[in-house]
């Protein structure tokens, strides 16, 4: 965790529960980052990513089209889904994010979460999570495909072979399970969900001003 001399060695930890396939999670992470940049004690803030699965029932091996899933399995009218996606894409664009929901490959995200933990061991969890978000929302990559995941790990500076071995061996599945259990204990029923210093919470992809105020509160709240 980073320290901050100006704050007398104080620090803030932000624990973030999110799913790689959650459109608001990528936005929320971006908005939190914007707030941290504006926070006077930015160097004292550390972010930890935790796993959450919105659709744990999905297969790792049989990708589905997101729009078809929402229409055929969730029962939403196609025009409404397309309108919703247009709105999400527009908001993402306002944050500088390029969403291509029409090419999203929807699969089980558990292995992507395990890769996030693998990256954490190398101090690159934040970079990994952002790469995974971009893979799903922009690149149309399959985030359950081990080869593709290993490629992404290599892109951010991790050892590809080690990442692949971790994925194939099931490593960090216990970490993912612990996150899911803790989310249940916390009463989290939707993501993104942010916990500051284990005391304050922000739910949803709120405006950066909300996150900045939360950081101020956490800084002065002890």
């Amino acid at each position, binding site marked *: 965790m980073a320290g901050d001399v100006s704050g007398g060695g104080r620090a803030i930890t932000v624990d973030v529960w999110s799913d790689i396939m959650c459109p608001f999670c990528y936005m929320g992470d971006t908005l939190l980052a914007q707030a941290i940049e504006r926070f006077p004690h930015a160097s004292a803030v550390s972010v930890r990513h935790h796993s959450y699965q919105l659709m744990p029932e999905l297969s790792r091996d049989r990708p589905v089209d997101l729009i078809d899933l929402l229409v055929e399995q969730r029962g939403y009218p196609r025009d409404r889904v397309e309108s919703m996606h247009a709105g999400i894409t527009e*908001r993402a664009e306002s944050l500088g994010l390029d969403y291509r929901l029409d090419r999203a490959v929807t699969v089980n995200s558990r292995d992507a979460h395990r890769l996030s933990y693998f990256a954490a061991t190398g101090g690159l969890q934040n970079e990994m999570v952002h790469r995974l978000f971009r893979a799903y929302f922009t690149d149309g990559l399959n985030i359950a495909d081990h080869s593709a995941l290993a490629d992404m790990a290599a892109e951010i500076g991790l050892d590809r072979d080690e990442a692949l071995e971790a994925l194939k061996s099931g490593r960090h599945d216990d970490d993912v399970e612990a996150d899911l259990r803790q989310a249940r204990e916390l009463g989290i029923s939707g993501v993104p*969900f942010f916990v500051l210093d284990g005391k304050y919470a922000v739910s949803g992809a709120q405006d950066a001003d909300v996150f900045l105020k939360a950081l101020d509160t956490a800084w002065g709240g002890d």
Partner: protein
Amino acid sequence: MTSTYETEEPQAPEAQAPEPSEAGPLILLNGDESVGMCDLEGECR
């Protein structure tokens, strides 16, 4: 915030802190407004 799926009223979480032995209930700083979230039903709002 762009409205997405229509859902029931958002719920205000009454959650426990990550380390219950060290902290009390979480204090939700954005009131009970839970826009910009996706839930287990696969709904995003």
